[in-house]
């Protein structure tokens, strides 16, 4: 019935949220926020991390209950929306952190909470057929019987989208949907989004990758610090206006670059091999230089950082620091030698989210903080935390709160901050800006620049081409576990890097 209604009138208001208020203990997360979504449009919801976008969308999808204001979905007023009601009303949300039951199959995940039953018995084959049908419509090549945990992240995300479509969602919320997809997969996603748009769905699109909005977005709503700032047609705004509205101040440079003179060689990797995705890796890092590692998802960059840091075993290869060969068998060896890693997955590898900021910052430095008896000296710990918070501009009321309560950007700062007390020689950043907002990104860039100026070798892995080219001095491109190209950032183009990034795959396909 509702589907018909959508079909009849394109562009009618399907979601109307007025003066929404939401308070968490100690924080006013949303303060009189207005939001409107029409059918057949893609609405970008923009704002820095902590601006309240996710909170607003969680209210729309019934995860949180609003404290004040009114919310209408398809003209019907909802006060205490539950996730189930939201689902029934046609709202589906695709989460930033993939929310799947890893142990269950694709079909089981797609039908979770609304299984088809015949009396008491699950109708497995029917559900599988339907799942296969939906995946087929999306042209996604996944066996509906496969266990979700065995799929790569990009495919898991496709399953989440398929899940949303399978409930005939008419309001689709996508929270950072492209953060783990390759260029080809993003094109595929956009094709699907356009199809949904044509079918009269309203899509809320949350993303920090402003450059990709161009391709699909119709209108934008901008939020900052829990408040509604403005909305309007996307094409009537300039990128600078959008950024200024999000950040609340002019960002002078999106990619601040600092020039340094290149010094002596600090770090060298020779013939490193580890598993399938690290093959014959050779490179050096110099003083006063940021080396970017570009490539597509699964090119082996993260695996390389892990092999260097001693997380995964190496099959062979040598690592030199200041022209002396060092042996790294485990992360502790690397840390002692002065090589540190800020890993890709903050929540999984980077932080103990249930511990306080203080404990996180102190964890890798306990050897420096303890006295001879192994007792932690509180004053030293205080000093370390204070310095980290001051130097990195970590926005937090206190270092005693849990790392989980920080926004993404501030979490990233803690991940980096825990290494800075150690006078490291080599700092490896793996996707340090993933999922964090423009303002925090610039702060991370500035931090890398500062390290570079201090003569520390910086290895910077990123899948976002503009930032690699904008921040790194030299760019090494990887594909399929090998280094396929090395270019100076100033003299290259995105196309050239992309050419290297896809080189090996093409050769393989041809042979």
């Amino acid at each position, binding site marked *: 019935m509702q589907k018909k209604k959508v079909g009849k009138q394109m562009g009618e208001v399907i979601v109307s949220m007025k003066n929404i208020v939401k308070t968490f203990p100690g924080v006013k997360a949303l303060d009189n926020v207005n939001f409107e979504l029409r059918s057949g449009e893609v609405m970008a919801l923009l704002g820095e991390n902590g601006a309240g976008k996710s909170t607003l969308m969680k209210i729309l999808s019934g995860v949180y209950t609003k404290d004040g204001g009114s919310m209408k979905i398809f003209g019907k007023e909802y006060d205490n929306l539950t*996730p189930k009601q939201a689902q029934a009303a046609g709202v589906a949300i695709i989460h930033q952190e993939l929310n799947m*039951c890893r*142990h269950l199959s694709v079909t089981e995940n797609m039908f979770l909470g*609304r*299984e088809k039953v015949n009396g008491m018995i699950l109708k497995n084959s029917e559900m599988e057929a339907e799942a296969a049908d939906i995946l087929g419509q999306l042209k996604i090549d996944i066996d509906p019987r496969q266990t979700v945990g065995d799929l790569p992240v990009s495919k898991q995300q496709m399953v989440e989208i398929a899940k949303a479509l399978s409930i005939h969602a008419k309001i689709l919320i996508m929270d950072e949907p492209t953060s783990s997809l390759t260029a080809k997969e993003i094109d595929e996603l956009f094709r699907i989004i356009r199809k949904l748009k044509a079918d009269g769905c309203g899509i809320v699109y949350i993303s920090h990758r402003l450059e990709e909005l161009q391709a699909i977005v119709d209108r934008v709503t901008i939020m900052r610090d829990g408040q509604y700032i403005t909305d309007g047609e996307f094409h009537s705004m300039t990128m600078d206006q959008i950024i200024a509205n999000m950040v609340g101040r002019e960002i002078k440079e999106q990619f601040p670059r600092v020039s340094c003179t290149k010094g002596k060689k600090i770090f060298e990797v020779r013939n490193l091999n580890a598993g399938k995705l690290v093959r014959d890796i050779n490179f050096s890092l110099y003083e006063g230089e940021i080396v970017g590692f570009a490539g597509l998802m699964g090119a082996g960059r993260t695996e390389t950082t892990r092999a260097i840091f001693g997380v995964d075993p190496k099959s062979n290869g040598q690592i030199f620091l200041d022209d002396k060969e060092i042996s790294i068998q485990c992360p502790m060896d690397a840390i002692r030698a002065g090589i540190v890693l800020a890993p890709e997955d903050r929540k999984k590898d980077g932080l103990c989210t249930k511990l306080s900021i203080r404990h996180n910052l102190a964890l890798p430095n306990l050897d420096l903080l303890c006295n001879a008896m192994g007792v932690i000296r509180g004053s030293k710990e205080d000093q370390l935390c204070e310095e980290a918070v001051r130097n990195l501009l970590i926005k937090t009321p206190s270092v005693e709160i849990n790392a989980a309560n920080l926004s993404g950007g501030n979490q990233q700062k803690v991940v980096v901050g825990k290494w800075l007390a150690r006078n490291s020689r080599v700092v490896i950043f793996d996707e340090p800006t993933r999922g964090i907002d423009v303002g925090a990104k610039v702060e991370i860039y500035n931090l890398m620049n500062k390290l570079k100026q201090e003569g520390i070798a910086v290895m910077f892995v990123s899948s976002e081409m503009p930032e690699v080219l904008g921040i790194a001095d030299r760019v090494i491109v990887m594909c399929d576990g090998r280094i396929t190209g090395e270019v100076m950032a100033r003299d290259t183009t995105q196309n050239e890097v992309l050419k290297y990034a896809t080189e090996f795959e093409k050769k393989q396909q041809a042979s």
Partner: protein
Amino acid sequence: MKENKQGTFKRLLGTRGMGAVITAFAGLIIIYVAFGIIDRNVFSGQNVMNLLRSMSKYLLIGVGQSYLLITGNIDLSIGSMVGMSAMISATLMTMGIHPMIAIVVALICCLCCGVINGILVGKFKLPPFIATLGTMFVSRGAAYMVNNNRNTDAIATGIGKEAGDRFQNFFYYGKTLGIFNTFWIALILFLVFFFLLSKTRTGRHIYAIGSNVDAAKLSGVNVVNTTIKAYLVSAVCACVVGLILCAQAGMGNMEAGNMYEMYGVAAGVIGGISPLGGTGLLLGTFAGAAVWQTLENGLNMIGAQVGIQRLVIGIIVVFSVLLDVVVRSGNFRKKANS
């Protein structure tokens, strides 16, 4: 038709967790044959009958605990509920009350305990280890209090003799189709709970909340109800085991079922059920319970002392999980290198 059948078979083999089940059954056969070679009596029909009867207790306890392990929780109160069920039913029967009523009362008490566990863990989000530690003491305390801190007299005496005999035969001493009733009861309950877990919506939800409780919640799964249901299953299993123990002893023992919750964990874990939740098949629990009982039985037959028995069983539990971990990490490495 034939092709279809083959497909079903292949599919069955491909089911998640089937590998661990097959390993457990293989281990069971090896252990059984090994004991049989040492002592031929292990293969005797009499011994097989006894084996089936005594494994029934572990099977039921294992099923109950497996439900909780799959949801990522644990139930420490199972053993105490066994004791409570045995004491309540025995006390009522010695008072001349009809066994049927005694059974119903015992069942209700256990279900109450299960609901409380479920609410504490599901609704109030207490750590299951703590919540059920509490109910473990509470229900053991109840087991003691039922008959004023004393074991009961024999249930099949005086006016209740006939009914008591029937009760004992039904749950322990009688046979149907040549096999002890105890095993039939356990098998029927096993099949019911097997069906519930693998073929119904509730079962699917149990796996889902064990795998990722947030994802399940966001998909509209009622986490509180599902948790309560899982604790109810363990309560039912515990109650029946209590009745079996009562029938076996012919009286109520306050310490009945002591440590059984851990036997349940062992049976599940040997059968490949991950204590971290989300994975495992009840078929594995069946194998696990059988492995456990075969070991105990075999060690008894060859005259091993209790100390040795405990020691061997402990090693087997650790070894079976270790095997699982090694096999799985081996797979992992293969995948990364291929």
